[in-house]
C-alpha cells in the first residue's frame, strides 16, 4: 500500500466502533447479520457478524480476540490471526473505525 495516510494495522489495546453511517442488525429473512447503508446491503458471514457485534468502542482488540477464542475453541492462534485480519479488512472497507 502506497497511501501514506493509510492507518497502521489493529493493535491489541485499541478499540473499534461501527461507522455511524452503517446500520448493523440481525436479519431473519437472510438468517444472517447484515450491514445496511445508503442504498447498500452487506450480508455478513457468522464470524464477521461475531466480530462487528463486538466493535462497540468498549472492548479492546485483545478482549475481542479472547471472546472469539472462547466461542471458537481449538486453534487460538488461528482465531487471533483471523480477528486481526478481519478488523483490518473491515476498517479498510469503512465499516468500522478506530476509537479515538
Amino acid at each position, binding site marked *: 500500500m502506497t*497511501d501514506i*495516510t493509510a492507518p497502521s494495522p489493529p493493535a491489541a489495546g485499541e478499540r473499534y466502533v461501527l461507522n*455511524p*453511517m452503517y*446500520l448493523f442488525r440481525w*436479519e431473519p*429473512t*437472510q438468517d444472517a447479520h*447484515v450491514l*445496511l*447503508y*445508503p*442504498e*447498500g*446491503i*452487506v*450480508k455478513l458471514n457468522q464470524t464477521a457478524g461475531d466480530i462487528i457485534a463486538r466493535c462497540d468502542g468498549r472492548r479492546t482488540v485483545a478482549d475481542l480476540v479472547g471472546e472469539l477464542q472462547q466461542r471458537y475453541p481449538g486453534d487460538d492462534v488461528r482465531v487471533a490471526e483471523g480477528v486481526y485480519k478481519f478488523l483490518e479488512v473491515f476498517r479498510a472497507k*469503512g465499516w468500522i473505525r478506530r476509537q479515538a
Partner: protein
Amino acid sequence: MPKDGSVVRLDGQGKPLWLVLELTYRCPLKCPWCSNPVDYARDGEAELSTAEWKRVMREGRELGALQLGFTGGEPLLRDDLEELVADASALGYYTNLITSGVGLTENRLRALKAAGLNQIQLSLQSSDRELTDTLVGARAFDLKLKVAHQIKAQGFPMVLNVPVFRQNIGQVADILALAEDIGVDYLEFANIQYYNWAMVNRDELLPTREQIAAAEREVQAARERLGDRMTIYFVIPDYYEGRPKACMNGWGSIHLTIAPDGAAMPCQEARIIQGLDFPTVRDKSLAWLWNESPTFEKFRGDAWMSPTCRSCDEKEKDFGGCRCQAFLMTGDAANTDPACARSPHHHLIGEAIARAHAPGRKVQPLVMRNDGNSRRLARGGQGGCGSGTGCGSGTARMEPDHV
C-alpha cells in the same frame, strides 16, 4: 438506480431486496433528464393512498425486502411521507429519501428523523446558481445548499447526487469543493442514462469521451486527497464503455419498483417497453407480482436471450445489459443491449454520439419536463424512439420552458 461501487453483487435468492416507491410523479422541478415517463401527465390512475402504500411495504418485508427508497417525482409533496417513513422503520427497512430538497424544512427534517428515516439523498445539478436554476426550471440552488447543511445538522447520513451531462461535466472540481464544505458522506456523480426525458434531449446532454475522461481524473485526484472522509462514486456512462451495465443486477433479480399508480416494475423505466403488461398492487398481491407476473418472469434466466448473449461468457456478469435500452434503440427488449460492443446494433451508439457532436449541429432548446410537454409527447406517442434513428428529431416542435 444501482450505483457503481455501492451495489454489493449479492444473490437475492429470489428476494426483492430493494423496494423503490415512486410516491408521486408530481414535482416542483422541470429537469430535462427526468427519469419519469415522458407521458406522466396523461390521465391515469390516482396515486396510491396511505393505506395502500402501507400494504405494499408490509408485503415487501414479507418477501424479504431490506432497502426501501422513497422517491418520485418529489416525495415531499406527499404529506403522508412522515407517516410512511415511520411505518417503514417499524417494519425493519433501511429507509432512503431521494429528494430534490424542495419542500424540506427544518420541521419536516426533525419529523423525518423522529420517524426513523435512515438517510437522505439530495440532488444537486451544478456548482453555479444560474446554471442550476436554468437547468431545473426553478430557483432551487440557494434552497438546495441551505437544505444540505440542515440535513447534516440533523445528523443524517447524506448522499449528494449529481446527474452528469454536457452542461455540468466541467464543474466536477467545484462541485467536489461544495460537497466537502457541506460535509456530505457520499458524493455520487451519476452520468445520466438516456431514457425518457433524457432520451428526448440526448443530443443536447450527451458529453464527449474527452469530457468524461477529464471528469474522471478530477474524481480520482479527489479520492486520493480525501481518503475515507468522503466516498465518491462515478457512475460510468455506458455509451462509452463498450460493455453493458449489469442493469438492476438482472431483470426481476433484486429490484422492485412501484409506480405512483401501483404498477409493479423491475426498474423505474420499464414501462417504456411496449407490449409488456404492468398490473398494479390494486389488482394483485406483491408476492404474485414478484413471483408470478409474466412481466417479471419475461427476462429472468437466459432462455429469452439472443444468441449473442446466450453464448457469451459474460452473461452471468452483465445479464445482457439493459432491457429498456435494448427496446428503445433496437425495438426489441430481448436484444443484446446496444451499449455492448458485441451487439450487432452497437453502431447505433456510435451514431448517437456522432449526431450529438456533429460539427455545425443546430443547438435545440432543452425540452423541459412539464405537463404541457408531457401531454404533447404523449400525443406524439414518443416514449423514446423505437427505430433507433432520429431520436430527438421530434423535439423541435416542443415549447422550451422559459425560466
